[in-house]
């Protein structure tokens, strides 16, 4: 299967994401000006500081030509994963509910965090078990996920909370300790921690992040989304 990774001016982790995805399938970069997704089976919007985080994180990147194609791809049921800045872009683009706000501790924080799986067997968590713990690095300044009470209730009922910070691990103040959410259809998923930096114990401290990429491959190969 093929991963397509969007690259904006100011993206930082796109090459790390490319390398991680390449362990699981084929992978290529998609320049933000291109509308052609190159036959990707799954799209990843990577971490970094697209457009310098100017105005609001992800606010400008969401209007890139490539993102128009991504929106259409998602509307068609294609799998879209947003990591950190990518999560911010997807929220700004309204492909995911809620918004990412500045961390409650008011500063960029880089730390290995423990996550709990809330939605197992979904498109992005196919190989994970409910309640399973993943150790993944988080590094961001605007990671406090917020949604109003009505949205939260709806998402809860619809099983859209995918990952949460384990007790004591939520440093950014996300409501309900939410670390990752998906859309109603379950084909678009965003998370603040970086699975692409946990694919090799030598440099990642754990290889738990690889499980997310493997889940995506499993979903694509099973032909469902």
């Amino acid at each position, binding site marked *: 299967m093929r991963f397509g990774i969007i690259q904006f001016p100011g993206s930082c982790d796109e090459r790390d994401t490319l390398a991680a995805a390449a362990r699981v399938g084929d992978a290529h970069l998609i320049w933000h000006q291109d509308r052609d997704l190159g036959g990707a089976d799954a799209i990843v919007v990577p971490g970094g500081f697209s457009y310098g985080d100017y*105005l*609001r994180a992800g*606010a*400008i990147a969401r209007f890139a030509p490539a993102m128009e194609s991504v929106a259409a791809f998602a509307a068609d049921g294609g799998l879209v994963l947003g990591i950190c800045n990518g999560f911010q872009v997807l929220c700004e683009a309204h492909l995911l509910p809620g*918004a990412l706000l500045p961390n*409650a*501790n*008011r500063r960029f924080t880089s730390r290995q965090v423990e996550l709990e799986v809330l939605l197992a067997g979904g498109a992005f968590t196919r190989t994970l078990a409910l309640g399973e713990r993943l150790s993944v690095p988080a590094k961001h300044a605007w990671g*406090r996920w*917020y949604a109003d009470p009505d949205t939260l209730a709806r998402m809860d009922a619809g099983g859209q909370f995918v990952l949460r910070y384990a007790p004591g691990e939520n440093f950014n103040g996300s409501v309900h300790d939410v670390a990752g959410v998906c859309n109603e259809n379950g084909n678009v998923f965003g998370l603040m921690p970086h699975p692409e930096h946990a694919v090799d114990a030598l440099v990642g401290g754990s290889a738990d992040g690889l499980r997310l990429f493997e889940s995506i491959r499993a979903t694509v190969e099973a032909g469902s989304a």
Partner: protein
Amino acid sequence: MRARVLVRPKAGILDPQGEVVERALPALGFDGVANVHVGRLIELDVEDPTRLAEMCERLLANPLVEDYEVELLGES
């Protein structure tokens, strides 16, 4: 036309920057300060001021979590 857009966090949403400023002012001897919120200012020259609201909705503010206010300042 010169326009000024003020973007501020929606009421009820945690505003850590506002909280820090609210704590810092009394420490400097300024009492009687409350309800501090920190937002963003954008100033621009526009040929068509009627499009400002749309600019705010689409880019300059995130209506989910921010309110905005537009001021027209006169000819640039």
